[in-house]
């Protein structure tokens, strides 16, 4: 899966969960600037887990500060799953 596709998937899920437009965000955008609370972020994580059939354990999410950090964790978990 391409990096870009993961970002698009994130935007799509975020828009669905928070019901707001996220088309303009970039990989470098800090999570704290998305205007999504921690429960909302976990909802997004859960939806990514479901669609990509991976698990993103809490330990792996520690230290995630930007969208890119999160997508890196997703990429790593996808590689582990293959």
């Amino acid at each position: 899966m391409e990096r870009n596709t993961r970002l698009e998937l994130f935007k799509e899920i975020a828009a669905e969960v928070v019901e707001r437009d996220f088309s303009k965000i970039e990989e470098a955008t800090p999570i704290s600037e998305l205007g999504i609370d921690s429960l909302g972020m976990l909802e997004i994580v859960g939806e990514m887990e479901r669609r990509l059939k991976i698990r993103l354990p809490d330990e792996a999410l520690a230290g995630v500060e930007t969208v890119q950090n999160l997508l890196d964790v997703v990429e790593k978990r996808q590689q582990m799953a293959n």
Partner: protein
Amino acid sequence: MSASRPFAPTLTRALEALQGESRHGFTFVRADGEERWFSFGELVGLGARRAAALRARGVAKGDRVALVVPEGEEFVLSFIGAVMAGAIPVPMYPAVSFRNLHVYHDTVTHIAGAAGAKLMVTTASSREFVAPAAPRIPSLTGLVTVDDLAGDHGSLIEHAQPGDTAFLQFTSGSTSRPKGVVVTHDNLRANTEAFVKEGLAVDIDVDKGVSWLPMFHDMGLIGFVIGPLFGSVDVVFLPTASFVRRPGVWLEALSRHKGTITYAPNFAFQLVAKRVKERDLAELDLSPLRATGSGAEPINAKTLRDFADKLAPAGFDRRSFLASYGMAEATLAISFVPRGAGLTADAVDPKALEQGKASPASAEGGREIVSCGRSFAGHEVAIVDERGARLGEREVGEIVVKGPSVCAGYYGEPELTAGAIRDGWLHTGDLGYVAGGEIYVCGRLKDLIIIRGRNFYPSDIEWAVGDLPGVRRGNVVAFSVDAGGEEQLVVCVEGTRADAQSIREAAAKVVNDDFALNVREVVVIPLGTLPRTSSGKPQRRKTKQMYVDGAFDGALEQAASPSAQEGATEGA
């Protein structure tokens, strides 16, 4: 068999009585889905071993032991182990993904410090998140993981007296001055007996609880761990994070285990109604569910109806809804609606309500308030005015509670305790009224902000925003508004038009950084616009009313000269 015999006088006696219990117990579901069942006899045996290990670590009777243990089975074993060692456990919330770690360290430091914790027990995975706080807690002599407590030191049950403190429930209070409710063994006996036997009329041969509620919180801990230990009731526990990530796991566990009793705060019902898909319901059978409790947050009737509509295809019976009212200072539960009654709501005239009268609405457009039922035997609920005088039927005032469930007070805070509990009456800080003997909760006297199950003190948020450039402390007011059945945060800030856009962005960011909370709107208003008391303190309620009435709309633009550059749009 119904849980009809009297409950043991203390939690330690209740645990002792479970030693031979091999038919009933707790099931723990892990994040990966693996399930593990322990009979109560096994749990108590393991707990006694943990008690001895804690004693070997120097934990003496009455010592406070902070618990930062996110995994269900390890939490339960550490909690009962500390109680059996005669110590006082202090459950604390674990670090959560996407929240600021510095703020978390501060919270850990303040809570463990206020409790005077001697030892902190955590897990291998949580250790790195709490370790930086440990050196800042003066009373702390050690930080250990549950693995460190695995060695063989024998078994121990140190029996408590009913009046002894069983644990400290840190649940409210601002970040810098957390409040720990002192819960005694007798409080636990009285309250669990009330809700297990009278409220739920549990039949231990039929009933099974299912809970994803966090165990560091009263509803998860007393409702699903301690109550079931006193009553020997089967419970299945799911990790909280699993539910938030995929709300369907709650329904799947209920279906798979034929769960009959479950509980959640309002936001969780909303999450299910929104996120669970029809196709996910096909395989589920929720018909055994007979008590679907809602508590800990204002109950929204529409949210519960949406939930029931969504789950009807899975056999969900809306008569199982059990609205209830309670708070940590009253151990847990204060009132329950009768079993099987479902949801009863009162439609009141909103104008009359502002005047303190809950008059039934004459036509459409009334405000819907859910009945939280009646108080328990041996307990009393009354409504009083500001001077403490009793109010009558349908008159709105502060809800006060008396009885054996009212806790001993706040740990190490005699003044706060004296303010909250007067002549045996707990002043809840909630506004409500009584109609036909049933309790209706309609607001809060305190300005506490509750968003998605989390409590925030406005002052904490106001201070964080008040530190921003272009903003002065004391010129910020934070409050929540109801937006489509969900509470959302609004921050009003006095500032200049030139700074407005940077204030809006910086305020939203600092609130998200420090509290992992999303702001619905940051409203920048001209200096001198916030309503204030005679001593110059901003008035939160009045500010909120002005915001709701639209009094701040365009205020900044009108204050600036008409020829100024293009007007910035409020909010977004």
